[in-house]
């Protein structure tokens, strides 16, 4: 039995006796809460990030903007964002090198930059890297939403995190006190802690007899179980902090299921939920996958009846292309609503938009032939975190660029090979105080968006 384990037992005994001793959590190699004191000052001021995914790329001919810099004109599907012009930066030319030629894998690596293959697992997503920083001060380390299944978040071990598709369930998970009251919950956590002790002892007894290189799966098991131990302890501690009271109007708005037949209502409700989670500091990191690559939702309310996957494989059909632009514009309009809400709602540091970086876009550009270069990307908010906006940044504008007439080749091959999307993810991670100089295959930061 090692010292960490005794700490854990000790701490539980102390809390049982009501001494309220603060506990040093066992230190593990990944996903650790920051060492307390030094981190706390930085974390006093909330810094937040949210990542929103649009499946199947866009109608690139309507989306593209040919002018760069401050005087750029927003393209048709983006026009609705004109009022947020000073708070957004459309970026063209970014790509994930490992995404090229990998079809619909692009959603899985959008936030990881990872290489997925028969022998390669995905790697940590940037939101989870950020969550490592913010986790110690929020009740939930991150929030994963996804309307059709897969989340965009991947653990440090490259395992996809589960996600929630119903706004009602996500709302109840966050804001409703679980049944039975604090005492009963605490009893449950203690019981779980005790069981965790037993199964850890059990695994360690085997682990001790095996050499380092022979542990294989066992190490992963031990790490995961210990992490659950940390989480259980954290949940136990949070029991003493009551959940925020939500006013009845907001509650009835959010605590419900919304059909995808009403896509606008669905998206806005999810956006409202993220705003509330940020406002109440339940979490500071969120991802929202608005649709799966295979079946991105149709928009029945405006007469777009086909899913985005079918629309994106338009085969040049002008009617499908028109509907794809309609769908793009519709989705962007809902994102505009999100930015509206973030700028209206304030916490102690001012509008949430200033302390929230929002990244919107797709891992696909030209869906018809699975072109994953020059991705459609919009970065918004985060002025208080040192971001600067108001311009269209176009990484395609290099010597080699032969112009946007070279459609769709520019969506298949990076015009500017240095324009890795991981550069942008690294930039955002650093703004969130993640101590790293590199993220995935990043080559540097995107200084163009920094003050």
């Amino acid at each position, binding site marked *: 039995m090692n010292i960490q384990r005794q700490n854990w037992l000790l701490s539980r005994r102390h809390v049982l006796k009501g001494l309220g001793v603060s506990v040093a959590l066992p230190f593990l190699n990944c996903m650790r809460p920051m060492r307390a004191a030094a981190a706390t000052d930085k974390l006093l001021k909330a810094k937040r990030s949210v990542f929103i995914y649009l499946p199947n790329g866009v109608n690139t001919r309507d989306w593209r903007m040919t002018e760069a810099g401050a005087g750029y004109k927003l393209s048709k599907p983006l026009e609705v964002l004109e009022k947020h012009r000073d708070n957004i930066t459309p970026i063209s030319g970014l790509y994930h090198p490992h995404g090229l*030629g990998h079809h619909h894998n692009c959603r899985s690596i959008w936030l990881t930059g990872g290489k997925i293959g028969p022998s390669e697992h995905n790697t940590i997503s940037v939101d989870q890297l950020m969550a490592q920083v913010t986790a110690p001060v929020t009740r939930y380390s991150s929030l994963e939403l996804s309307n059709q299944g897969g989340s965009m978040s991947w653990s440090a071990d*490259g395992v996809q995190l589960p996600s929630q598709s119903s706004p009602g369930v996500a709302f109840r998970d966050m804001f409703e006190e679980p049944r039975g009251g604090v005492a009963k919950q605490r009893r449950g956590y203690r019981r*779980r802690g005790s069981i965790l002790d037993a199964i850890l002892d059990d695994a360690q007894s085997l682990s001790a007899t095996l050499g380092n290189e022979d542990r294989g799966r066992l190490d992963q098991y031990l790490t995961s179980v210990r992490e659950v131990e940390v989480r259980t302890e954290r949940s136990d501690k949070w029991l003493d902090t009551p959940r925020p009271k939500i006013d009845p109007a907001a509650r009835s708005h959010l605590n419900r299921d919304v059909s995808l037949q009403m896509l606008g209502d669905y998206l806005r409700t999810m956006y409202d939920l993220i705003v509330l989670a940020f406002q109440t500091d339940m979490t500071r990191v969120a991802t929202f996958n608005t649709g799966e690559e295979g079946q991105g939702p149709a928009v029945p309310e405006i007469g777009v009846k086909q899913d985005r996957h079918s629309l994106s*494989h338009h085969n040049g059909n002008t009617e499908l292309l028109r509907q794809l632009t309609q769908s793009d514009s519709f989705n962007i309009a809902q994102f505009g609503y999100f930015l509206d809400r973030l700028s209206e709602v304030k916490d102690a540091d001012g509008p949430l938009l200033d302390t929230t970086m929002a990244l919107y876009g797709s891992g696909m550009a030209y869906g018809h032939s699975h072109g994953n270069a020059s991705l459609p990307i919009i970065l918004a908010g985060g002025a208080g975190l040192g971001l600067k906006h108001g311009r269209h940044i176009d990484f395609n504008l290099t010597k080699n660029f032969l112009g946007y007439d070279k459609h769709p080749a520019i969506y298949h091959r990076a015009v500017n090979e240095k324009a890795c999307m991981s550069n942008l993810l690294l930039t955002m991670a650093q703004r969130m105080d993640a101590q790293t100089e590199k993220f995935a295959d990043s080559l540097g930061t995107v200084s163009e968006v920094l003050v």
Partner: protein
Amino acid sequence: MALPSNRFGPTGYCYYMRGLFTVTGLITLAITRVCGAGEPATFDQAVAPFFKENCSRCHGAKKQKGDFRLDTLPRDFADDAVAQRWAEVMFRMNAGEMPPKKEAQPTPEALGRAVGWISSRLDEGRAARMARRGPVAHYRLSRDEYANTIYDLLGVYYDVNLPGAFNDDPRWHGFERIGSMLTLSPSHVERYFKAAETVLERAYPDQPPATVKGRSEPKAGNRWLLFPGLRHGNIRPTAAGWYRIRIQLSALPSFKGRMPHLALWHDGLKRSIIGQDVIAPEEKPTIVEIQTFLPEGGLELMNEAPGMLSDGQTLSQTDIPFVSTKDRQFIRPTGYKLFDDDGKPIFPLLIVDWVEWEGPILSDADRKKRENLVPAKNGDVADARECLNRFATRAWRRPATEAEVDRFMKVMDRELAAGENFRSAYMAAMVGVLTSKNFYYIEEGSATRRRDTVSDWELASRLSYFLWGSMPDDALFAVAKSGALHEPAILRAQLARMTADGRIKRFTDAFPRQWLQLYKVGMFPPDPELYPDYDKWLEKSMLLETVGYFTEVFGKNLSLREFISSNWTVLNSRLAMHYHMPPLTEPRFQRVSLRPEDHRGGLLTQAAILTLTSDGTRHRPVHRGVWVSEAIFGKTPPPPPPNVQPIEPLPNDKPKATVRMQLEDHVSHPICASCHNKIDSLGFAFDNYDAIGQWRTEEVVPRGMGANPPVNASGTMADGRPYDGPDEFKRLMAQDVDRFAGAFVEQLATFALRRAMTIDDAAQIRAIAQASKADDYRLQTVIENFVMSDLFQKR
């Protein structure tokens, strides 16, 4: 992050290599030809000059085509990954793929010397590679295996597919149980906790739920009319569990012959959980009985045939009571027109008299599973210990040790100390047993002693998870305990017993789904504008056809050849309609004979396969070729290089062109052609089937000028034999059954052993296939030969 262990799973090289061993006959020939005599040549003598002459220009220091460099390839043949890489090199040289045909070709002698050297090193490295395998291997249970094991252990249904229940299992080429893929994260552990608590609460509830009967029916003299999309009736389960539901109803097909689909709609999940087509005359209602597991939450009866409501319109429910279709009052001028002028339904209709349900029902067999695992008397610690020992021994599929039981008894002690009552404290220990790695991992090997063979306990689990997707039963445990399971006669007897058991259904369901990658069916739903006839029940029927077909081959113990080509299949009425075959009198799945003009038979032309290789709008010849290559020949073509130029949409002012015509234009580039020639010729054979698997002779092309072009489904096999159309293609494939048999054994072994097959398994795979030839590759013979082989019994 840690890469998956090479020892137990797929490596990058396997990807290209997968299944190459099924054609290793070729390799052996070359080896025996040159290695018979003489001094063993050194690398510098045999290989270096060969590489310099034939390979280095494209795979050397200057250029690395396909990202592959030969001169720096390590020569540590004890390393799995290195050995795999060399095996790939050897395979490509032997198969004549490298150097490419357009390049100067080496002499057979030079080739033989180089191949001989590689082959000898591979053989020599074998023992070292085996020794490097870890002393203990852990394979996590897949979701389905977890559910099966829980059911067999405690008689509790735990629905692993409910939202939030379990994470998705990552797959490797369709297989869901590959050890290196089934990683673990904290969220898994948390979900195992939740599952264990739920399962034990259901197995040992404080208050056992009473079996309740309920009934729901319309007002006396009326019937419920359910047109497509409409729901009626309230089924209210009192607790999750097994239910018997009976429904009296009439069911009228539409005038076009489409049958109504009776489904149980779950209000909470917002989807139907079970359903079937029904047919019964209005005057002669039938009684349908459904037995199923129901989760918590209310249900309604639904007519889930697509039709009037599937266009997004809503229809206000009429309050006019329905009595009969003859009732003139019902046929209102303002309502939806339900009947044509002959009084025949325009839409398939259900007319319901009543629904009854009963549950939750606990069968005696399930009750018995739960006996003797919980102390009879509160406070009897000694009995608790014995019960826990029994429970752990069954749950972990091997005897629990004293020390292990102690550990979990301590959980109980701590709970008692915290003030919990005796029973609750004991339950905590049981939760511990089910959240321990010993339960949800299959563990093979021992930490203290390296061994090559599995123990009898491990063999029992291998067998039961292979055939039943679950833990061994008492009989198998008893044989394992006696230490005789590995004896051939006893093992054979157990195999026969298990094959005859009802649980074999889990194998005949899971294996074809994974082998044939059926999870892809419905992943890219067909475009409703292009394929208005596609619906969820059709999708499900497609899956059931393929699974049912496999089950029939297994049950009747037919030859593997039937997977390629046959004059029968397994259909329900929905599929008969889809295939434009004569209507069936009964809606259920049944074996039917095929006529030549049906153009069906075997797996390759089943709708499920043809759909999963399409993308929702178009059929994809390349995907179909890759699928044939993987599923039938067990060989995965390399993935396309990045940066390929896309196929551009056809301009409106050009003549219409099939996908094939566009593709052939596209792959005229030599770099693309080298791979595509091999892949595409396997896919073009199925151009007669559209994206949802319907037969056609011309391809509907939305854009371009002129008439739709005719389908061209001709081509040549890899060995040069020409074919014209899918039927000829299948005939030629069936002649290749030896090759297919090798690939099939490899698929079976991948499934059973939970790992990718390597160069070191090749010889045994070949031997199993060859041994099965004498019995015409009958499926159960192949399985028996596999189970009796070293491959199955060794670590």
